[in-house]
């Protein structure tokens, strides 16, 4: 094969690979180029989506009875 033809094939292959890489980079947003400077005010960053915690089941209404004593002074037998 003539040398010029070989160079032509290599050039075409290289150009194809280059296009393939650019296309992949654009597709994945993985370009190494810095983002263009914006003249508009920067919008607030979008909050990272989080998975909401599972809802806590609301307890049913109840009547809670609180029995309470104080200052029994150690009396274990009826007094007073």
């Amino acid at each position: 094969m003539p040398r010029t033809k070989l160079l032509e094939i290599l050039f075409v292959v290289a150009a194809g690979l280059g296009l393939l890489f650019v296309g992949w980079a654009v597709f994945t947003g993985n370009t190494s180029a810095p983002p263009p400077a914006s003249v508009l005010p920067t919008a607030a960053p979008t909050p990272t989506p989080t998975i909401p915690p599972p809802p806590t089941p609301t307890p049913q209404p109840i009547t809670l009875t609180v029995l309470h004593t104080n200052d029994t002074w150690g009396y274990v037998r009826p007094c007073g």
Partner: protein
Amino acid sequence: MARRATKVKEERAASADVLLLDAGNSIYGDEYLTNHTQGQVVIEAMNLIGYDAMALGAGDFRLGLDVLQKRIAEARFPILSANVLAAGTGRPFVTPYIIKKVGGYRIAIVGLTDIEEAETILGDDANALKLLDPLETARRTVVELRPQVDLVIVLSHLGTQLNRQLADTVPGIDVIVGGLVTEWTSEPWRSQVNGTLLVEADVPSPGHAGRQIGVLRLQLEGGRGITGYTWENMTLTPDYSDDPDMNALLERYQNQ
């Protein structure tokens, strides 16, 4: 104790959603059995009734720290105080609070102890403890607990005036069960600032203690918290029969 046990059994037979609490100054006493056993009979009786928690009252320090620690170890219920620390370690002297689940509701129960009376009673033993300001401790503890629970109850052996101050100045407390009570009230006192309820069962005097039991019924509705309440202060007259199990326990101690 035997009448109290009967009343508690009645309440527990009627509903599973019952808490039994004591606001402190209940282990030490000069009644013969209590004095003779250094409070052991009281702890065993409270175990038998099934108390859920008790505040550490300053008067309970009259047992001395060593004996008190033995009684605390024998109790099958927590004896609570958030503002009494061991001086050496800076760790709580007793459990500061518990969280219990009743009827699907998470309920924090925090203990507080009157530090001025404790210092007087403890004398030199006070050096073994670090006594913290109860209101500041309550504020810090409630901030920590409030997001975790549906209801905050403070078992507070601070006395009527300081308990009212606690209710007015520390937001986030639903109910204060008070001890060291100095005045009778026919209804719960309620803070106009935070809506906190203060209930107190007994104003004891020598020869007249341990006869009263407070009965607070709270209507709890999901995220709305307390939607209603009733309270009564009952005197355990001879109309209440003695619980036979309690009588048997006391007889056993009497015959030792």
